[in-house]
């Protein structure tokens, strides 16, 4: 990224964070819901899009972050609680990831599914740490001696953390560890041949991805104010994978686009359809649109919204350009309109 673009991006973030305070509570809630989901989706994107491992345990990892941060936050840890949520998420992710060193593709996915169920069960019965099914009440986050209470403040905080995470991950990809993620994803044998310690690289991917997901979990705890096992169920894991698919794997913007889509599209359908007053059908059509869109994306645009938007942008600028010069697009322009493949692992279990 050029220096100028960096400054522009930083300014945009500052503006967006400041803009949160102009929103109403409902608007602010939507912003932090999107931002928090996007942070976890960034974690998943690192794992799936850049390191080639699928996970259905995101829900449980968010839960681990939430319970850790909730407990420590209640004990007065403040900002440290958010960090600790991340660390706990990272450690748990490595533990879940260990079998992945021996399994791949589908089998790893099923292993994470098993981990999701076992953790969900533990959330329910380890009452001293989680308060069990009743759920754990979480006091508001205390940051620099001040209590963060309003939705607007949480929206600003979540957006800021999203930007930091994003920038951090982008940085990471320019380090040796980050570059080796890509090599391992494309071909493990080649990676070995290049002298990359594949096991270590994978463990790094699990650690970082889990850390990011855990931070998102910490924010969930402080914004929800109640951590219950039901909130960290398989449903959340599926939603996370859906965000990745719809947004686009292997592109950081895909995580934000996917989270925006999964959180806001049902709400938009709801608002648009409310005029008809059929609450029953409204929810059904909301679900139907959601399922259908997932299928359509996978079939027609597997690289997700990120690729779709980019194509759309190119088409638009081409249109503008051709209007301006009154010339038809050159073959070269058509050829570059295809987004370079950065999709996930293409290997099958068999």
């Amino acid at each position, binding site marked *: 990224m050029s220096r100028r673009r960096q400054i*522009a991006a930083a300014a945009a973030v500052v503006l967006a964070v400041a803009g949160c305070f102009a*929103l109403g*509570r409902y608007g602010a809630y*939507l912003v932090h819901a*999107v931002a928090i989901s996007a942070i976890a989706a960034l974690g998943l994107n690192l794992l799936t899009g850049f390191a080639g491992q699928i996970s259905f345990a995101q829900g449980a990892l968010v839960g681990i972050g939430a319970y850790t941060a909730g407990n420590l936050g209640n004990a007065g840890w403040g900002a440290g609680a958010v960090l600790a949520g991340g660390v706990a998420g990272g450690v748990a992710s490595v533990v879940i990831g260990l079998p992945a060193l021996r399994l791949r593709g589908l089998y790893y996915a099923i292993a994470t599914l098993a981990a999701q169920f076992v953790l969900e069960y533990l959330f329910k019965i380890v009452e001293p740490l989680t308060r069990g099914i009743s759920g754990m009440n979480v006091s508001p986050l205390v940051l620099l001696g001040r209590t963060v209470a309003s939705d607007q403040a949480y929206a600003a905080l979540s957006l800021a953390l999203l930007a930091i995470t994003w920038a951090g991950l982008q940085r990471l990809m320019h380090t040796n560890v980050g570059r080796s993620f890509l090599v391992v994803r494309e071909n493990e044998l080649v990676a070995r041949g290049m002298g990359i310690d594949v096991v270590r690289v994978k463990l790094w991917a699990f650690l970082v991805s889990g850390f990011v997901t855990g931070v998102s979990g910490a924010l969930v705890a402080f914004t929800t104010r109640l951590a*219950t096992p*039901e909130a960290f169920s398989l449903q959340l894991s599926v939603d996370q994978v859906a965000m990745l698919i719809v947004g686009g794997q292997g592109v*950081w913007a895909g995580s934000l686009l996917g989270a925006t889509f999964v959180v806001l599209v049902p709400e938009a359908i709801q608002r648009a359809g409310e005029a008809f007053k059929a609450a029953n059908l409204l929810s059904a059509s909301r679900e139907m649109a959601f399922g259908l869109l997932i299928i359509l994306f996978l079939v027609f645009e597997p690289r997700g919204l990120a690729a779709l938007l980019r194509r759309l942008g190119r088409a638009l600028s081409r249109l503008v350009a051709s209007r301006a010069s009154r010339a038809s697009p050159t073959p070269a322009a058509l050829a570059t309109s295809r987004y370079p493949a950065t999709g996930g692992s293409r290997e099958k279990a068999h």
Partner: protein
Amino acid sequence: MRKPISRLSAILAALALAAPLAALADVSVCVWGTITGPDAGVNGMSYGTVAYLEHLNQTQGGIAGQKVKVLLLDGRYKLDEELKIYRRCVDQENAVLVKGWSTGSAKALREQVQQDGVPFVSETFSSEVLDPAKYPFLFIQGATYEQQMLIGLRAAKAQGARKVMLMHGDVEYGRAPVAVVRKSGDIEKMGLELVDTIEFRYDAQDLTAQLLRVKSKSPDVVYIQASTPQALVILRDAAKVGLSAKLFIGNMYNIHPSIPEQLGAAAEGFRAIQLYSNYGDAIPAMKEIEAFKARNTVEKQDLYFMKGWFGGKFIAAGIASAIQKNGGKPPADIKAFRRAVRDALEALKDLDSGGIAPPSTWANHQGPTQARMAEVKGGKYVSAGEWVNAQ
């Protein structure tokens, strides 16, 4: 690369501004329930309230002459969805009162409700949100799960039961009340003995082995703290191991036609706690419902719709009294209006619900604490006995 963030916030800001703001003069009430989702079978509780308020709009021009704007939303029994809806109701719809659904949402919101100063009526029966001193804005509508359990066990004891077993799902409203009753020692105080407690998976498809465990302890009564689908599986598998449905008592969510319809003879003798009159009973409220039905569709014609209608009467009575105290006009300031409604709700005395429940006083924030038993006889639930008080 970072542009999407600013684009996103622009979209959000537009969305937030474009949403219709309720005119302050209106009386706006917000209701959410599980319209679709795991416990949608009892969502008559939400439909009933909306129907009653619409009924007032149609027949009396609203509450105390003010049209009521009622919004029904689907919380889908998902905490994040419910939290989002709450914010929309308070922030955008300017609701003077919010009627929410799950125990979880009531617990997650109990402090915010306090800060916002919004009267919040919940469908839950959890004792954890019932504390007029600590949560003065929270109201529930009837006997708590714990009270229901004790009423059921007392009825069993009257018939000579001694050994008690409890069965509950692995969800919030299953485990918590059972633990409260178990730890309180109330069962022993009643002269009964708790021989075992079984927690089972909420979406269990088969509970035969659990019922073998029940059988091995040979209890005189088994109380079920779960919803209709679970009660159905329990009764089905009870028949499998040769236990009669007479042994089982369920809570107020176990009165559902699918139980006798699906199980036939295996459901005969099953009893459940009834807090509200049946749909179709010969009570004054039913006349209103019939009148409403002549002009509108009644979404759910069951006991839970009756609870909803009852909740509507409670809410309307509170709002009406608040408006009257202000000289027949709603207070212009929404904060003051909310406060006034809360105070009015708490001050309601001997509220007549048209026979849906006994007359109720609301200083306790839960209204009626009476219940009666309903028993499956000849494929139908038949109400047995008089209203019994939990105290």
